[in-house]
């Protein structure tokens, strides 16, 4: 693949590989690729692992994956941007995910989002200016029996209200 890559990009790939050699996380990622025998159809599994290790998928990381799996960078970038689960920007210190499935929606999940947006000036999908809070929405986390559900840093909380959500976020902000 390298043969047909333009010169500036070749340089960049070399820089990425040089940078990667000094970072342990890249080694773990490569071990994961090895586990999948560098199969190209394991791309999504590899990206899951990369996001787990690095928190988000920056361009150089995607380039590293593309070199190692011998895939065109466009294909890796295309997959990373297609799926909602992959984040291409750094996330805030804390993540508040509001479920916007139908059951949560009819029980007032939109009001929870409005309240957080109004108080913390952060819209769904964004991270606050001080990088402390990311507000995200989920399509449905399958917790419809306890709607509306909100996930605070990975912990699902049942029967949320605008007040309970703001209280939790304020607790984060105090620390």
């Amino acid at each position: 693949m390298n043969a047909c890559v333009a010169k500036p990009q070749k340089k960049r790939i070399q820089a990425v590989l040089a940078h990667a050699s000094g970072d342990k996380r890249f080694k773990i990622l490569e071990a994961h690729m090895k586990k999948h025998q560098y199969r190209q159809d394991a791309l999504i599994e590899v990206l899951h692992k990369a996001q787990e290790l690095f928190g988000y998928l920056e361009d150089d990381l995607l380039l590293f994956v593309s070199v190692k799996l011998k895939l065109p960078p466009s294909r890796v970038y295309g997959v990373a941007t297609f799926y909602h689960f992959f984040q291409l920007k750094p996330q805030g210190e804390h993540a508040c995910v509001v479920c916007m499935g139908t059951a949560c929606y009819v029980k007032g999940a939109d009001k929870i989002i409005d309240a957080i947006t109004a108080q913390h000036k952060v819209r769904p999908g964004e991270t606050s200016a001080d990088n402390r809070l990311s507000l995200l929405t989920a399509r449905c986390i399958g917790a419809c029996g306890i709607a509306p559900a909100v996930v605070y840093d990975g912990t699902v909380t049942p029967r949320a209200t605008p007040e309970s959500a703001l209280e939790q976020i304020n607790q984060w902000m105090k620390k």
Partner: protein
Amino acid sequence: MILNDLILLKEKQQAARKKIVLRCCMAAGCMSSDSKGVKERLEKAVADAGLQQEVEVRGVGCMKLCCEGPLVAADPQGALYVRVTAENAPSIVAALNGGRASAGQTDPQAPFFAQQFSIVLANSGVVDPERIESYIAADGYQALHEVLHEMTPKEVVETMVKCGLRGRGGAGFPTGLKWGTVAKSSGTRKYVICNADEGDPGAFMDRSVLESDPHSVLEGMAIAAYAVGADQGFIYVRAEYPLAISRLQVAIKQAKQMGLLGAGIFESPFNFNVDLRIGAGAFVCGEETALMASVEGKRGTPRPRPPFPAESGLFGCPTLLNNVETFANVPTIYRKGADWFAAIGTEKSKGTKVFALAGKIKNTGLLEVPMGTPLRKIVEEMGGGAPDGGAIKAVQTGGPSGGCIPAQHLDTPVDYESLGRLGSIMGSGGMIVMDDSTNMVEIARFFMEFCMDESCGKCIPCRAGTVQMHHLLNKIASRQATPRDLKKLEELCDLVRNTSLCGLGQTAPNPTLSTLRFFRNEYDALLQPDPHGPDRTGHAHKHELATK
């Protein structure tokens, strides 16, 4: 492993069964209300009371009444405790000897439980999903043994055709026909895929089945693989379901250790491996061709059919693709026989269906009923009607591909055809109840926004059409639309429905069309008079263009 080992293991499990079993729900819903803490405290309380010899504390899957979780059941006393906290645990153990429990109780004979008919959920809330022995004790893997040693693949397919099972993913395609087509396809390699990409917002049946009874899905897949001649299976599961993923990983590992997956299953020449593929949040991947693209590590975009996956699917090989619930039905069908299964349900829709009841309703949770059960029975009798004395306005089935069934049609029996006649679909089983405070135009807009965001962008009708329809619905909701806009919306719905490439686009207009059909007055109330007078023939519009 051979049959004797299986029977021995089963008998050993049954003999080891303690006198009293405290079942504690460990599905995702209850786990979010600290059922893990409850279980630990129960174990401690049992140890403190010195009852380890008589009482077993068992973590089980979903006990169905999710809104009252965490749930704890005591057998054989038959008590069902609701909203249990860790503090209640000692009193629940004390209640086994005639004390009084401090936790609330509900009647396990209430219509919500008593009217259910369990096939898929038979083990849910009973077996420990993290122990294969527990599944084997409940007759697990017996059907696989029987199929491998006493039936030819052709007979397996014939039984499936005879039982009349139809795909539970939504479209209702006859499962036996699908199996037969894949079995007949020629190819050196064939695949079996389980679609666990439960993307419909408001549906959580597949999550519950995977969390509560993962081995039934694995056994169902193995039987299917034997029938069609496949040796490799994939389960495509959403990344949003971490608990289901970890339970599946445990289940696959245990089944491999026991020789129930892998090479030479039950000492027969049949090999079958299952790998997990984790989705990454794309609704369109529920569509079969998009799902296969995703399993191949590509963008999840659908492709035109034919060729159908049964002829050319994953990596170009014949592929059998079924939903979680379909596979979960399979072991019971072979254990109890096709005739037994075919006697349940209606003439065209056999068996049972699991529904996830949620929204503005008293009892939210999972329920499994025979096909043909009237909607009213599900919603009013079992679901307990709207909370706080409100009136039910509509029931939404089928998620963003389905429609809203108004209260006057609640007597409709639930089967594929009846729901289709009302402009909705069976879907995967999400059932969202709406009361009179729900604005139907908002609901249509909510679903259209969903489809707009989730459109993969491959075909123009869906990519551009959903944006325009969403724009028109926004305009209507903000009281800026005229009757002409509504007409345009209806035309667009028709166009997108008939010209989109895959199911996402073809069904995206359904929520809008069904709310227009039954709640048109809500749309009309938001419309502004047309500044150029009524537009019956379209002349006014042409005139307007001409003057511009």
